[in-house]
């Protein structure tokens, strides 16, 4: 195929954009992701702007620019303020701290020690990002620009090679070549399934000729995962570019991004990005004068976990109840509005421009034999450094939790990590050195899923966790197929019975039988994976189930039904404080005489426990 010359020279555009960035002078990056906004980053930005009006006094820069960025990932330590030219990142910055940063560091040249990150192990202040363990052990590819550019400025995206990959693809004018590159890179779907992306593209491209669609799945429903949100908020142009490249490869001219309604900021940023990209001819009709057209629409979800399943998502875009449809026909042949449709997840598409720019070999050298490249993980729960990370596939759990995550919070003991949300499973101490890739995790009875990692410590009850997930999937089951609808409901009933201290040993067999039936009999991924948390906790923490059933005890001390709150008569002075605090009037006794708790009435809220000045109330 012949190469094409386009009406825009991307290198020229890049130069212009880089000049604009240079003119900003000293760049002060303030995180404006959802997490930091909640911690007050908008106030921090305002305060900087007020102070920054006085620019003449800066000696080595004639100007300072406050850049609101997407998520840096280190949400635990927000608000994050970083000044790349001064090689410094400040953490937990609040409105009142801004003046000190401005006066002491930006004008005075001396870093503000108290706002630097403190290493939890050594207790030392750390100046540079690259020395903070959380960042040092990462390899950011899809997230590369998140937190480093102004997510609302297309120029900043162009300055860091945004739309260059699309330009190259359109110049070379070889759609099959693009598919070959993606195939060769070994990229697999990052949304959960792990299906080879290139192969999916090839299937859809086989139907070139008529109308077809590219759909981006941004319905990040797994509780505990927020990488897609961060990409959409922090680097929306990378996602749009990835979609445009996919559309060119498979011959589509229209695309949809399906975003959860719970992500209003992502929707706002994507809307702006689409508008800006259309104005600059990177999207819309006749992109960069190549003759190729691609328009993108945003569809807001309305709160249904099952819509993350591709056929349910298609039904939802069409305005129907988001119920999965049987496959085949696969979306590649008959998808949205009955036309061939390519559906990829946000993170998958964000990897595409990077692969085109750096080559398939570059991507394939990262990761393991069967899982190439990097993967983002949302590290949350009982870990010191919660946040969003990106590491090569095959990194071990130990490296993630203890090196990057800084270990378990409050010096507690590690118990398990739940990976892949309600569809995944739990991994225990014995898996700490397991390489995190698609196939090793499947073998261990878990799955990468979307990449949510919720760390649990010794005081988490695994039976309760299984109940929690089952409650979630029961609520989210769409009700179309019987095994999932009835199976999740009955599994939940059994789990609730065990948690309430009324379980019998035979319940465990029934639970297992049900789990296998639901797994095998369900129509879509939701039902097929819903029993995973039950199966994996039964496999690794059967003793906890047995403790609940036989000893009527919750080893982690979580399950309220098995808790008993009593008053130690020797310590009780009869001050009546607890009796007055109790919301249900379960505590009786006369002044200066030991009180006691009516166990029938007690709701185990522990209010009395906190109120007692003599520590006479004990939890058994």
């Amino acid at each position: 195929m012949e190469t094409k010359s386009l009406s825009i020279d991307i290198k020229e555009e890049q130069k212009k954009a880089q000049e604009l960035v240079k003119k900003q002078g000293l760049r002060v990056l303030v995180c404006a992701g959802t997490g930091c906004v909640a911690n007050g980053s908008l106030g921090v930005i305002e305060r900087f702007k007020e102070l920054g009006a006085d620019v003449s006094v800066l000696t080595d820069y004639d100007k300072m620019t406050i850049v609101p960025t997407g998520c840096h990932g280190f949400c635990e330590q927000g608000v994050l303020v970083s000044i790349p030219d001064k090689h410094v990142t400040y953490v937990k910055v609040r409105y009142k701290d801004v003046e000190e940063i401005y006066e002491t560091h930006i004008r005075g040249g001396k870093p503000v020690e108290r706002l630097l990150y403190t290493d939890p192990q050594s207790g030392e202040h750390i100046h540079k990002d690259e020395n903070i363990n959380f960042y040092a052990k990462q390899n950011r590819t899809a997230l590369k620009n998140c937190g480093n550019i102004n997510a609302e400025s297309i120029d900043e995206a162009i300055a860091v090679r945004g739309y260059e990959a699309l330009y190259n693809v359109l110049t070379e004018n070889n759609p099959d070549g693009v598919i070959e590159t993606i195939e060769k890179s070994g990229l697999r779907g990052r949304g959960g399934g792990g299906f080879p992306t290139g192969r999916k593209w090839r299937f859809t491209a086989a139907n070139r000729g008529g109308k077809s669609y590219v759909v981006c799945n941004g319905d990040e429903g797994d509780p505990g995962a927020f990488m897609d949100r961060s990409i959409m908020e922090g680097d929306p142009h990378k996602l749009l570019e990835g979609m445009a490249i996919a559309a060119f490869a498979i011959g589509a001219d229209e695309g949809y991004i399906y975003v959860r309604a719970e992500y209003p900021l992502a929707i706002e940023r994507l809307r702006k990005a689409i508008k800006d990209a259309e104005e600059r001819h990177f999207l819309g009709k006749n992109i960069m004068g190549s003759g190729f057209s691609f328009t993108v629409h945003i569809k807001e979800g309305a709160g249904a976990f099952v819509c993350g399943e591709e056929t349910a998502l298609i039904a939802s875009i069409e305005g129907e109840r988001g119920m999965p449809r049987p496959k085949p026909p696969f979306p590649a042949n008959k998808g949205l509005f009955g036309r061939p449709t390519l559906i990829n997840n946000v993170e998958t598409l964000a990897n595409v421009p990077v692969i085109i720019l750096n080559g398939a070999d570059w991507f394939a050298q990262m990761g393991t034999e069967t899982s190439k490249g990097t993967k983002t993980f949302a590290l949350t729960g009982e870990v010191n450094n919660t946040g969003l990370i990106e590491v090569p596939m095959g990194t071990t759990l130990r490296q993630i939790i203890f090196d990057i995550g800084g270990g378990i919070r409050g010096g507690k003991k590690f118990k398990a990590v739940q990976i892949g949300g309600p569809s995944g499973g739990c991994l225990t101490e014995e898996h700490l050195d397991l390489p995190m890739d698609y196939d090793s995790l499947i073998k261990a009875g878990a799955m990468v899923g979307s990449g949510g990692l919720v760390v649990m410590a010794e005081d988490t009850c695994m039976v309760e966790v299984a109940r929690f997930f089952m409650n979630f999937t029961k609520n989210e089951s769409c009700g179309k197929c019987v095994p999932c609808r009835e199976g999740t409901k009955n599994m939940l009933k059994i789990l609730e019975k065990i948690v309430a201290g009324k379980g019998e040993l035979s319940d465990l067999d029934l639970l297992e039988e049900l789990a296998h039936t639901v797994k095998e009999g369900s129509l879509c991924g939701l039902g097929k994976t819903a029993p995973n948390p039950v199966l994996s906790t039964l496999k690794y923490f059967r003793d906890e189930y047995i403790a609940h059933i036989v000893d009527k005890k919750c080893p982690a001390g979580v399950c309220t039904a098995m808790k008993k709150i009593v008053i130690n008569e020797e310590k009780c002075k009869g001050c009546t404080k607890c009796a007055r605090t109790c919301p249900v009037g379960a505590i009786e006794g006369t002044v200066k005489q030991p009180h006691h708790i009516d166990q029938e009435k007690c709701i185990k809220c522990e209010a009395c426990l906190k109120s007692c000045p003599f520590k006479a109330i004990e939890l058994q």
Partner: protein
Amino acid sequence: MSIDTSRKISTSKLDEILQSYGCKKSNLIAILQKVQEEYRYLPEEALIYIGTKIEGLSPATVFGVATFYAQFSLEPKGKFEIKVCDGTACHVRGSMPVLNAIRNKLNIKEGQLTSENGLFSLETVSCLGACGLAPVVVINGKVYPQMTSDAITIVLDTLLKEEE
């Protein structure tokens, strides 16, 4: 203040919303979202009206869609919409005590959506994607990070004071 359920449905307002989405079947979810924004819930009359106006739809289908998605409510919501995140990360870090504190404070029972005075509605949501700040509570779009039962009580007290 009591819940105003008698508020008349304005067909001209509904027509305006329908028109802005081209009265298209595939835009049904977006249309319902707009209607809910307008009335803070989906009144039954509105669902019937939409079902008869859009070609290829029936009131039953519209009702089916409205009841499928968690975002839609057929009951009026409060002036303050409280959403307690009960995603995994929030759950592990103690979202339930926070939820119970709100229930006690506002006297909203389990299974009840809106408080008697119509001021507050309370729901749990699966995940707001702000897991780094767990547990989180969102009130009318504002995210309150790292909540405890004491902290949320202070937040609610402030809101109640403002209302007086």
